[in-house]
């Protein structure tokens, strides 16, 4: 453990350096969570009541309002994790490490949801559960990289090294993204089996567009709220760990 990395946590010698309870500082996170909950409820109403049923695909098309925002939020989580990792490596900041960790963990949930909703939607529409086009391949690889980041932390000898290594994996992962996208795109171009599908549906009805845009907002707010909550929890875990070490 370097002296640098402990500078913004509780110092064992002076437990009063940071007051244990600071009422009010986390209030914005609770408001954000409440807002996310309200937005998701309204979103559910829009998706199942307000938006019209699509003529060709039927009810299953309503998955679109989940799948597309969730997948974009997943990619957002990867960008956030990679940027936070880079800042953590450059500055050795526990705060950025906890953001990277929270973004990875919440991102795994979003990627898993994206993959599951994609499969459930692809099956009735395309007849297969999964299509290895550029987007599918990229989603799957990023999901694996995120799981790898979490496992790197879990198997590291201590939290500090785990955070550093997971940051390295995330940055390397970000570096491979353009090549992976290109390789998967060329490769799937060799197998032109797909002609129709959710990507080929032309213009959206006004109600559909409103629902989609609202869904984007709801899922992004939900993502930010969950990451903020998880990052704060992570910092508390760090503080508890420091106290435990100081007591031992």
């Amino acid at each position: 453990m370097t002296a640098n990395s402990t500078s913004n946590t509780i110092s064992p010698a002076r437990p009063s350096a940071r007051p244990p309870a600071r009422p009010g500082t986390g209030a914005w996170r609770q408001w954000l969570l409440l807002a996310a909950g309200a937005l998701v409820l309204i979103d559910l109403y829009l998706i199942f009541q307000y938006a019209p049923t699509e003529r060709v695909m039927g009810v299953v098309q309503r998955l679109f309002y989940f799948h597309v925002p969730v997948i974009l939020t997943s990619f957002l989580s990867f960008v956030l994790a990679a940027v936070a990792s880079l800042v953590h490596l450059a500055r050795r900041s526990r705060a950025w490490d906890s953001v990277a960790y929270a973004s990875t963990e919440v991102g795994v949930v979003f990627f898993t949801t994206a993959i599951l909703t994609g499969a459930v939607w692809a099956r009735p529409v395309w007849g297969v559960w999964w299509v290895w086009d550029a987007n599918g391949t990229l989603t799957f690889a990023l999901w694996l990289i995120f799981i790898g980041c979490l496992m790197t932390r879990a198997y590291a000898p201590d939290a500090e090294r785990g955070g550093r290594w997971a940051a390295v994996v995330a940055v390397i992962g970000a570096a491979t993204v353009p090549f992976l996208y290109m390789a998967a795109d060329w490769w799937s171009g060799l197998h032109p089996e797909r002609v129709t599908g959710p990507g080929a549906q032309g213009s959206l009805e006004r109600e559909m567009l409103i629902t989609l845009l609202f869904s984007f907002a709801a899922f992004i707010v939900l993502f930010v709220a969950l990451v903020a909550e998880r990052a704060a929890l992570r910092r508390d875990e760090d503080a508890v760990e420091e106290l435990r070490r100081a007591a031992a």
Partner: protein
Amino acid sequence: MRAGLRAALAVYAKDVRIEARTRETLGATLAFAFVAAFIFTFAFDPSPRTLAAVGPGIVWVAYIFTAMLGMNRTFLLEVERGTLDGLRLAPAPPEAIYFGKFFGLLTLLIVTEALLAPAFLVLYGLSLLNVWFAAVAAAATVGVAAVGTLLSAIAAHARAREALLPLLFIPLSLPLLIGAVSGTAAALDGEGWSGAGRWLQLILAFDAALIVVSSWAFAFVLEE
């Protein structure tokens, strides 16, 4: 710069010397590679038509699995015998250690792949004596070694390293795997510049980017 180069060469020479005296890693990877190549005989009916379709895949699955075995050992000896601390204390930049280890792994992989190539001819009638295949394989192996050196330094310290290394390596080297399989298929089909050449460019671009990023990130892994 010159001192760094000398340090990298010293690390490389040390690894080659250890391998030349013990032949431990090459023996293990070669034996594993033959088994990996051989198992496909029973995985499907080896008729010429099937082979034309799955041949490049067989070659690269065998190569990638063998590479993972080899990279697992890259830093294992150093950690087990405590010599990594010596490397850390050595008056050499981390990049020099990275490049020394990188060339060590690259040499091991190229030798293993070259020795394994005749096995594909004997077992499956796949002739890999092809300039474009050699170029694609060499370029992809450079990328494998670049990513593998970094990841093996992470995995060597971790618990459950045998599980962690493949989990990290496969998704991060996926562009290489796709490019190598497709490039090999094109090369064996006799599509030179228009087929294999396109994949070769992608692999080389990946190599360049990943060597830069991995050698930069290595310092953060080496640090205690």
